[in-house]
């Protein structure tokens, strides 16, 4: 959880007063809070994301390098947590949980 994961901001929206966006992490997409980079990011930009919060803007090359480095170091556990949350939330939409 100490190492942020770089992702590409796909879309930006306002959720009840909070700046949020869809971010793509090497094919895994999820909702990320962009409030700490308000006014600094647009769709297509890259940012380092810590546990669902974009903390710093980076350029595309740096984002790719960092993502590959994390992959080489097997430090992408958080993508599994994202998937787990996404699967549960889909299961929740399909019907009540047991």
């Amino acid at each position, binding site marked *: *959880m*100490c*190492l*942020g994961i770089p992702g590409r901001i796909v879309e930006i929206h306002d959720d*009840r*007063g*909070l700046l949020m966006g869809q971010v793509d992490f090497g094919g895994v997409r*999820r*909702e*990320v*809070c962009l*409030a*700490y*980079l*308000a006014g600094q990011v647009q769709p297509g930009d890259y940012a*380092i994301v*810590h*546990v*669902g*919060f974009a*903390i*710093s803007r*980076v350029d595309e090359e*740096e984002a790719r*390098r*960092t993502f590959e*480095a994390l992959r*080489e*170091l*097997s*430090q992408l*556990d*958080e993508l*599994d*947590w*994202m998937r*787990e*949350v996404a699967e*549960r939330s889909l299961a*929740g939409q399909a019907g009540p949980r047991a």
Partner: protein
Amino acid sequence: MKYLSEYRDAGVARGLIARVRARATRPWVLMEVCGGQTHTIVKQGLLELLDGAVEMIHGPGCPVCVTPLEQIDKALRLAADPRVIFTSFGDMLRVPGSECDLLQVRARGGEVRVVYSPLDALELAVRHPDRQVVFFAVGFETTAPANAMAVWRARELGVGNFSILVSHVTVPPAMTALLSASDNRVQGFLAAGHVCTVMGWTEYEPIAARYRVPIVVTGFEPVDILEGIWMAVCQLEEGRHEVENQYVRSVRREGTVPARDLVSKVFQLVDRKWRGIGEIPQSGLGLREEFADFDAEYRFGLTAIQVEESPECRAGDVLRGQLKPFQCPAFGERCTPDHPLGAPMVSSEGACAAYHNYGRFRQARPAEV
């Protein structure tokens, strides 16, 4: 060497290693305080490549590893409470408490869910108004902005069934505590790049000046770390003790200001126990009085729980650099990643797990030397 050769910038890395080895007139002792850096150093075999020029001590840089036993026990109690949906980052689930871990509580019927972000936990609370949703707020300064926002947002949206169990720690007080110890061996630090991306490095300047140690803000890739080591060794050889920034592509001196601002609105500095090290004054973050309603310890009456740690786990000695993981009598025998005695063997960022996973004990084990 085979580890480094798998790395794409191996040539650059070898050049830096040669420069460090040529420059060091004595073996310098440096500490990194970042689990990601520890992982890189051990995986890429940098310890062996720098042997004789630089000794790296793996400091308390893994948030999972330093979360004190009593906070884990409080988490276990909350997770077993039928009113509660307990939510956590995935890497806390296998950390051993006094009697079991969160996975075992889940197996016995406790509702424990992995979330990626504390906002996922807040969303769960909104969707389950009949349940209490508690989030295990652990981590260094990198997760504090996220946890601060979750609490801020809960108050803003009036989500009364959300609370957090706080076990936040901050890096600079731990560095100060290590440097103040009479048996300190650390002569220079690599500061964690991603922590400084959030916080900047102004807090490190008085530490470098007071204890006369170089502190180099450093990234987590092999070349970053070697460059950070190179910069620290140059300072030591020249008798300088400054804060320098190796990780210029991510870190600015003032950090990410809006994130720092919200962290200080929601949290305040508190004394905090570190697993294996003990209490370090003003080394943690706790919720400010005005957010006490969102503090799970108050809501569920857990403030009085105090727990002594198991004497068999020598995590404290490892985190203070007094013991290498493989020198612990339990290492690899009674303590393995599948059956950990302590947190540094659990997390992928923990020093003991890194040594175990990358076979760093085989060649270095005292019995075989």
